[in-house]
């Protein structure tokens, strides 16, 4: 039986990259579908915006879609190479989702005032819930990444 060629792939790092990309994609997707389209709390353009805000929104939307597709192909690659570390990957997803949500909640909502979560209601409970849940996901994700920092892939037959 031959030794598999696994030298160039850094499996732990690639698990994180895949998870973070999928996490960012999930956050962007949920924002777009749930808040823009289903609830219609805010829209893709709220008119009270700056050129910078519009630019960043367009860029993040494009990057969000790229992230989810690229992240899933990376996930398929991890499976194909049998180097998936499920808990590490899940931690990275939480980190990516939380980080994007915190960015959206602080920079886009508050600093640029691009759009708010919803209108004509007291914002504080929404902002707190949005940003605290983001912080909770970041903490949980970071904890999982810390715990799996030396983890070996389940399917790593050469890792002994």
């Amino acid at each position: 039986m031959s030794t598999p060629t696994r030298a160039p792939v850094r499996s732990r790092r690639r698990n994180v990259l895949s998870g973070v990309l999928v996490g960012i994609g999930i956050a962007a997707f949920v924002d777009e579908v749930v808040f823009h389209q289903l609830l219609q709390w805010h829209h893709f353009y709220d008119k009270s915006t700056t050129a910078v805000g519009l630019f960043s929104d367009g860029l993040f939307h494009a990057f969000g879609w790229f992230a989810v597709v690229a992240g899933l192909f990376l996930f398929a690659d991890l499976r194909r190479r049998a180097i998936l570390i499920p808990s590490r990957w899940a931690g990275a997803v939480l980190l990516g989702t939380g980080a994007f949500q915190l960015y959206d909640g602080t920079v886009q909502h508050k600093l640029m005032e691009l759009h708010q979560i919803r209108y004509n209601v007291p914002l504080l409970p929404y902002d707190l819930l949005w940003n605290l849940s983001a912080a909770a996901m970041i903490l949980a994700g970071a904890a999982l990444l810390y715990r799996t920092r030396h983890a070996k892939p389940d399917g790593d037959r050469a890792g002994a």
Partner: protein
Amino acid sequence: MHDHQAGGFGVELLFLIPAAAAVAAYWAGTLSARSRQWPLHRAVLFTFGTAAVLAAVLDPLATRSHEDFAALGIAHLLAGMLGPLMLVLSRPISLALRTLDVVPARRLSGVLRSRPLRVLTFPVTAAVLNIGGMVLMFRTGLFTAMQESAPVHWLVTFHLVAAGYLYTAVLVGRDPMPHRAGFRLRAAVLILSAAAHNILAKTLYADPPPGVLPADGQAGALVLYYGGGVVEIVIIFLLCRQWYSSTRPRSTYAYA
């Protein structure tokens, strides 16, 4: 506003001639012995791609797109994004190289290697030609000129098709392309140009081109934003799939 004779034969029908010739040539190539079992689905893609491009300049869409900004958005998607994507996926250059006689095939590969084509197929050039064309079309006097003169409309549509094809071929085409850029550059250009597309569509929502009513402008911007988004996601998928197959591990052990 120029006359499209409703229900009659407009001069646009002349575009059927080159389109039918191209489709006939593609099918002849597909069915010839030299094509060595060229997949039929590519011939179907080429046919539908040509039809999508034609639909943008023929009635009823051509007439409606002068009155209705949402219809112009649909025509724009067909001629600039969906049609070119189907044409690129049909790999016409590979088919031509396979089925042409030696001399024209050599000429074609000489053209592919030529300096102008090398410049054109640099991803940044292709993206600027594509996005720049859209900005000019919606944000300059070109928009009004296009509404008033059919030849200008055709020229703009021709640019839309050509730039859309170039952009798609450079990013995800599988036809031979000497000096094809690497995955990272193509990914970066794709993200930035998709972002530019999003931004343009959003500004059209708030600030439609001259002569377009606000409600009309919003409907058209939604078509461009979401319809364009779908085609962009397909292109992202195709680009990432190329990465996925190019990094396939050589060992079969990993599949066990």
